[in-house]
Every structure is written in C-alpha cells, then in structure tokens.
C-alpha cells in the first residue's frame, strides 16, 4: 500500500500493489497523465501502476472507476470535513 496526500486539498490516494495486475487502464484514462508504471514488480510478477505526480491530480475518480481489480482508490480526509462543518 502506497499512500499519497494531495498538498492542497488533503485527500488521500492509495495504490495497492498486491491487487494490481498492471493492465494500464488507469494510466491510459487519467485525464491529467498523473499515473505511470513503476519499476517495482509485485508478488505475482506484474509491473504495478503508481502515482507519479500527485500535485496534478484533480480527483476525478477516473482511475478508481476504471480499475477492474479494486487496486486504486481515493479517500476523503474525514477529519478535515468535520473541521469545516
């Protein structure tokens, strides 16, 4: 599990290496070209996708929706939301 935090909006972006199969759908359909393949190889021998440029992310959820293996997900910061309200 690799967690990224957006520098301004304070939401989290998580990639799960154990579930990723390296199909590249998230990389292809990211509108801001944030994601990319990493040099790491996971347990099953797939080259996994990782977040490369978190500051460009616009939280469109396209990667989460495109991923067939539930390996990428975006989580809101719950504590920040509570503080605002």
């Amino acid at each position, binding site marked *: 599990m690799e967690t990224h935090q957006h520098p301004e909006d304070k939401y989290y972006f998580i990639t799960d290496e154990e579930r990723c199969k*390296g*199909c*590249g759908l998230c990389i292809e359909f990211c509108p801001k070209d944030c994601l990319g393949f990493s040099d790491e190889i996971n347990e099953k021998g797939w080259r996994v996708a990782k977040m*490369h440029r978190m500051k460009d992310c616009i939280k469109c959820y396209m990667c989460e929706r*495109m991923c*067939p*293996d*539930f390996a990428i997900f975006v989580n809101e910061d719950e504590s920040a939301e509570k503080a605002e309200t």
Partner: protein
Amino acid sequence: MAEKSKEIDKSSIIKRPPMDLKHPQETLLRKKAIPTIYCPGCGIGTTIHAFLEALTKYSKIPQDQIFVVSGIGCTGRASGYINLDGFHAIHGRAIPFASGVDIAKPSLKPIVISGDGDLFSIGLGHLAHAARRNTDMTVICINNAIYGLTGGQDAPTTPVGAKTRSTPYGKISFPFNLSHITIANGATFCARYTVYEFVQLSKAIGRAINHQGFSFIEVISNCHVNFGRRNDLGDSIAMRQMFKKARVRMKEEDIGFDLHKTDIEYEIGKGFTKIPTGVFLNEKDEPEEFSERITHAYEFKK
C-alpha cells in the same frame, strides 16, 4: 513543460496515514478471494465494481435483501467475490434458481450476473420464460461476444466475420441482439452500456434494481485475450478506446418500435463500429410481477 511534468514526484508519499484507508466498496468484497482470477484489464471486474457502486449509491433496497446468483463462465465467479448472499448455479440455470428464490421469498431481490454464453446459449429458454412471467429480478449480462473461459469458441453473440478458435476463416452465421430478444419476450426494463461508460452503467444498474419486475442490462465487455487477439483489436486499452468511439447514445423515443436500430455493427479488421447504448425500455406503470400474482391467486382460492 511536457518534459518537466514527466518527472516522478515522490514528495507526496506519507508513511503513516492518519486514519484507516480502505476502498469505498471494501465491505462488499470477500478479501480472501482478491486478487481476482481475471486477465489484466478484463471488463468483468469493472462491471462488478459498477454493480457494487450501484448498491451503495443508487439502490433503495437494503443490502441484506439482495441475492446474487451467477452462472458458469468467467462471470460465474462474481457471486464469490461479492460479500452478499449468493449462489453459484449450474450451467445455464442461473435464472431458474433466481426465479425460485423470488417465488419462495418475495422480499429478496435476486440479481443474476452472468455471461452471454450462459444466459443466451444454454439458458435462452429460461430467460425468455422469466421475462414472459415478469419475475421480479435483475439480469446483468456481460456480453464479450465469445466463449472466453473455454478457449475462445464462437458464441451466439459473435459478429459476422469475426475469427475465433472454432471459426478460423471468419464466422458465417448472424449474431443475436440480446436487448432485442429480451424486449420482445416481455422485459419491462432494458438497457445497454459498454464497460467504458462506468457512471452511466452504474446508474442504470441502480435503476434496474429499484425497478419492480424483470429488468435486463447488457454490458458490452472486452475479451482482449480471446476475441481481441485473434481479430487484431489490440489489448484491453485499445478495445476500450474502440468502445469509446463506437458508442452511440440512444433514447427510448429514438428507437420506437423498430428494435433493429439497436443492432451492433462490426467490420472485419476495425472491430465494432456502432454500439447503440442507453436505456432502451422503461415501462413506467410497472405491471404486476410473478410472486405477487401467485399470492393473489392463493387469496382468491381461499
């Protein structure tokens, strides 16, 4: 500028997240079964994800009243990955099992997730009669135009000219139009989407679950390993880009009574050139479903 943005930025990694981070649909997944057995980039995973999102976001039925039934094939494993009540039925008999669930316990909502080979090849008769009786169930048919699990033989949905393992010189016979068949047999809700249109697909599944009566959703999926490879359509990314170009949004008013407008067009070498998508049929007055009619008949007899 473009060169600068291609550098890998690792400054945003945090090692200790302040809270427990998990997938929004994590509670609906059996974690032991994941990673799934599907090939990388398969559309079945996307469809399961869309179904789970529909359950959490758009469905009005509580999750303990949902019953997932799946048939044989790659899609048959769907009931194993979803952490709800479910059953992995025998080949082609997913719909009879779901009909039995609905009649025995009308409070449950059976949902059949299965492939085109299971529902429209061996199970075609069952589907026609479930649609005729208007049994209260939702059928999600993942159509990848081939028998994927058994090695790529030609299915009843394989388009004319497509090469498969059993038709190496191109298929000769005509394919089924699945939405046409179900509407003609009396379904009350029918929609078709490709795996590329995730949000629309998820909303349509939500509408189908809330709809009382026989609802049918056809999902055009990619089998890049057995269908795309033999027909030079590329990998999963290329096939999804093809769906993006080929889809044509259609409404109920555009189709009218001429259901041949929903036919899928295929060209040899280019792949799918026209896939009409959208909600094709939504009967608003919702005719009585089968389990209700049974209870009425018993009351009448008393």
